[in-house]
């Protein structure tokens, strides 16, 4: 391993961002925080994209590794020990300076810090802590920080980092324990899931504390979410009651929640397995997001797809679509896929696919259907469904109004009626609808497969439209 410590900063940045780029999450969402008097920076609930790289992916955070030295030899990883690449590290000061200077020029929304394991998980986690401490306390950086939890790091370190970061994530890496064992001999499921559980508990505990503060103050709990924007302010008011969240007013534990990532296409798992795992992560670990990363075949290994194999972008895209259906549309994984049909339809998006296989529920009457059912109509998203619910209180809706509300009629019209009438004389018949919708989607899917049109799917939690008011 060639380790070069005293490279110039530009070279380090090149190496350590290149080494970090396969991590997909670059969102800066999930926390609303006002600027502070002494420092620099704030955070917005919806996050902000600052640029788009040549691959069309959003650049929101300065995504780098602290070091690309690594004692592990995970087969899929570009930084594995056995790869003959130049190794280097940032010093905490270098990294803070870069973050601050990029931030002041509005290049980034904050820092995304990951790292190879130089000597031990604990040592690495501690160095990450040092960077964060310096950045928050000395540079008074108040922007967004996403940090990777290091599998195998001790609970105290994870805890300490959690009070300085906005979001933490531990990569599940491979959908199954067998896959992990085969490709990442240094890691185990347990080493990943233990800190994940710890972070979940930390976040939960804090939610309860916040709720207590609110009760003591006699404040109404607005809605069911305990994650109120402005929660930080509440703490400031409440400090006189002598109950305070550990660490003081600004320190909330992982306020933007926890996420994870799975590599798709390095091992043999099918879509059903992957989606089921994602579902249980949402349910059992209360994750904010699960990210999917189409495997880019870079390393030579008999357990991996051949070098140069195209990354499965369409598959990744379908997984993201299905993921949104799980989180916002009330679908269960087993409704979308099954043991008998374990992979997504290449031609149809998962929601359309479901609708066409369940024509017995359609057509749906827009002026009467419940919210849950509206959400299941292809072409109606969460926002349009909510607007339909509100709009129809004052008047019966027709197709014209649906269009203005934002319903994609060219998709939806096969599945709905307005005041008992369909838009055109179309048949509720599987083959017919499939054919028509395939015509609509043909160009899009072709692009996806051949021109690699990857779209960062960006609904609500990532890029809700800004409202400063």
């Amino acid at each position, binding site marked *: 391993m060639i380790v070069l410590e005293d490279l110039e*900063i530009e070279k380090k940045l090149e190496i350590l961002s290149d080494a970090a780029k396969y991590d997909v999450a670059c969102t800066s969402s999930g926390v609303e925080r006002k600027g502070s008097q002494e420092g620099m920076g704030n955070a917005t609930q919806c996050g*902000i994209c600052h640029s788009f790289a*040549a691959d*069309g992916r959003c650049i929101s955070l300065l995504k780098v590794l602290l070091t690309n030295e690594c004692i592990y030899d995970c087969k899929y990883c570009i930084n594995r020990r056995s790869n003959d690449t130049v190794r280097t590290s940032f010093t905490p000061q270098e990294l803070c300076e870069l973050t601050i200077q990029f931030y002041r020029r509005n290049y980034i929304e904050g820092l995304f810090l990951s790292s190879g394991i130089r000597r031990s998980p604990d040592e690495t986690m501690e160095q990450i802590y040092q960077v964060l401490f310096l950045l928050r306390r000395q540079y008074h950086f108040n*922007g967004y920080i996403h940090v990777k939890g290091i599998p195998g790091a001790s609970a105290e370190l994870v805890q300490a980092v959690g009070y300085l970061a906005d979001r933490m994530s531990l990569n599940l890496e491979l959908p199954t324990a067998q896959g992990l064992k085969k490709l990442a001999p240094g890691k185990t499921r347990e080493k990943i899931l233990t800190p994940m559980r710890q972070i979940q508990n930390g976040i939960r505990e804090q939610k309860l504390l916040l709720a207590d503060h609110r009760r003591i103050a006699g404040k109404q709990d607005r809605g069911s979410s305990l994650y109120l924007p402005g929660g930080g302010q509440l703490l400031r008011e409440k400090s006189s009651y002598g109950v305070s969240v550990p660490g003081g007013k600004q320190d909330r534990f992982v306020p933007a929640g926890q996420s994870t990532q799975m590599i798709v296409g390095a091992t043999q798992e099918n879509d059903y397995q992957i989606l089921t795992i994602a579902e249980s992560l949402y349910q059992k670990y209360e994750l904010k997001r699960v990210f999917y990363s189409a495997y880019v075949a870079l390393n030579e290994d008999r357990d991996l797809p051949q070098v140069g194999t195209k*990354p499965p972008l369409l598959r990744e895209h379908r997984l993201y679509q299905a993921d949104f259906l799980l989180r916002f549309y009330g679908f269960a994984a087993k409704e979308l896929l099954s043991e008998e049909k374990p992979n997504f339809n290449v031609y149809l998006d998962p929601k359309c696919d479901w609708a066409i296989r369940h024509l017995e529920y359609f057509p749906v009457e827009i002026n009467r259907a419940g919210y849950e059912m509206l959400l299941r109509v292809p072409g109606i998203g969460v926002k349009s469904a909510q607007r339909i619910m509100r709009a129809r209180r004052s008047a019966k809706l027709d197709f014209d109004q649906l269009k203005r509300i934002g319903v994609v009629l060219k998709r939806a019209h096969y599945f709905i009626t307005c005041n008992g009438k369909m838009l055109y004389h179309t048949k509720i018949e599987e083959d017919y609808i499939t054919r028509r919708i395939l015509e609509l989607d043909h160009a899009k899917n072709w692009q996806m497969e051949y021109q690699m049109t990857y779209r960062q799917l960006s609904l609500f939690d990532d890029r809700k439209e800004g409202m*400063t*008011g």
Partner: protein
Amino acid sequence: MITYLCEDTPEGIFTAIYDAWAAKIPDDRLHLMTEQEMNFSLFTEYRQVETDQEKAVKVARSIRQKIANEAYVQVYYASLSDEEDKVDAIYHFLKQGFRYGARVLDMHGLVQVCRVYELYRAVSNENQKYRGFVRFAEIGRQGQKLLLARIRPKNQLLPLLGQHFADRFGQENFAIIDDERAMGYFHGKTAFLSKVDMAQIDRLWQGQRDTAYEELFQTFFRSIAIKERENYVCQRTMCPIRYRDYMVEFNKTGTDHEKLHKIQEEHRA
């Protein structure tokens, strides 16, 4: 026909609405617009609106109290739009609003409601893009440094962007210049919005300037992209070319445009 002409600012527009409302002119004879780009008509009576802070505040307050805060947000954003019909649209929306109250926001059957919502959406979307795409350059000598950014938005975004960056960079001296409108938002010990002399801005822009971090960001921008997933069409969809004028990562490399162009050529062939 009676036409109210007002200054193209939220205050000017709110004042015009106050005056027109007070004059009780029937809708079919009333027209409200901002002063720019006028084609005068012989059959119209023009009334010049004198911007009046007090009247404007009264209108703003009534919207919040009698309709809803959300309505105020929509109307304020709409007033920053570059669409010609915005003053009329806001006036007619408010008329419905004062009739129905907060309910009006859900009445998508009314064209007036839809139009203001459209304007609001357009301004809000562009604002969200610019929040990310604005690039500050560090300009000036030691001791009197300034972060300067230039933009060319379709809509009047300075009040919104100013508010965003004032919160974010409270301690910094910064300015954002709207090239098209020759306006600037300035933030230092105080903050203000004013007309600027573009020749002076150009001189400042070309003067002493720290480019070390611009180059570092270009490096980062190149190395963070995954070659196997290259996709210039998607890049353009997410970051349309019109935003790129002052984005340092596109400026010097320039290659992204060329590659996009090449792909389009190939696609056509």
